């Protein structure tokens, strides 16, 4: 099987566990994803599946892409990504992949684009303390000193500075799978996921579980 699928963040809510505990969950619509192309060792030097998600109108698709989708007898899709394949697994072009591949998965990773915050100062962006608000201070939300003098003679790399915040690709690892709904293509994960409602995410089988011995 493939190691990841594409999806859309629908939003957050809460569900009760059997023990009656309220758990915050993110609802993600995962798939169905059509395999639009298969990368093979012979032809490409590596193994992967190219999958498409979220159908769009043929009218909104250009001719070269229409041709590409026709090869896998697929509707035109908004999002196309390559995902890794498990060793030894056979994937066919034109195959539809659904959420149920996560059915036996306890944890998954989610990759998404965080909400854009625009140009932000150092307090919001890096959590700096800022200066005093009162007692004659005028240095309210400023960064303060950004380094020493002629030694080292330059600003250290990665020094926290104001700038654009958010709208970056971020991975959240080991989110607990609370529910898999193959009928509605839904995946319910405990906790938050990067991005706004309606934004695309990639859901991946957790790599870290097992490697670090962190299971169950």
């Amino acid at each position, binding site marked *: 099987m493939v190691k990841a699928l594409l999806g859309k963040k*629908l*939003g*957050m*809510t809460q*569900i009760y566990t*059997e023990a009656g505990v*309220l758990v915050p969950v993110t609802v993600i*619509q995962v798939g169905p994803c059509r395999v639009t192309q298969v990368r093979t060792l012979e032809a490409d030097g590596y193994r992967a599946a190219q999958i498409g998600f979220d159908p769009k109108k043929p009218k909104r698709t250009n001719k070269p892409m229409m041709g590409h989708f026709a090869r896998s007898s697929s509707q035109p899709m908004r999002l196309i990504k390559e995902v890794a394949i498990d060793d030894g697994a056979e994937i066919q072009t034109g195959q539809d992949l659904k959420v149920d591949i996560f059915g036996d998965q306890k944890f998954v990773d989610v990759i998404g684009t965080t909400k854009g915050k625009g140009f932000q100062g150092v307090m919001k962006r890096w959590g700096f303390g800022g200066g005093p608000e009162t007692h004659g201070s005028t240095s309210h939300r400023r960064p303060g000193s950004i380094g020493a003098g002629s030694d080292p003679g330059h600003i250290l790399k990665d020094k926290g500075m104001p700038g654009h915040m958010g709208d970056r690709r971020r991975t959240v690892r080991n989110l607990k799978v609370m529910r898999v709904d193959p009928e509605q293509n*839904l995946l*319910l994960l405990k906790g938050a996921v990067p991005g706004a409602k309606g934004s695309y995410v990639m859901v991946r089988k957790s790599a870290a579980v097992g490697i670090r011995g962190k299971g169950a």
Partner: protein
Amino acid sequence: MGVIQDIQKAQMKTELPEFKVGDQVDVGVQIVEGDKQRTQVFNGVVIARYGKGIAEKFKVRRIVQDEGVERTFPLHSPAVLWVKVKRQGSVRRAKLYYLRGRLGKASRIKEKFETKE
């Protein structure tokens, strides 16, 4: 659309126990100890109801050994089996947090009687 609303609705109880702030209630809570299940009863006065939808909760206050004890129950939780009203209270406030500062006689609540049609 409405997928999230459907998920919430599926979890919500269809028949809610009827009770109000100020009522003296017994709350049946399911307790799982190992593989055994039993029902524990928590008795007290409802001092608040808050939240909406799936997340609605209520607070019950009682005095145990001269010490105030408050428990918050999620209304739609499967662990909250039932709520029985022992005595209806007549109160003018939505939140009875003022009871926290009172003991004994001062913490009495007037009983509400059904008015004749």
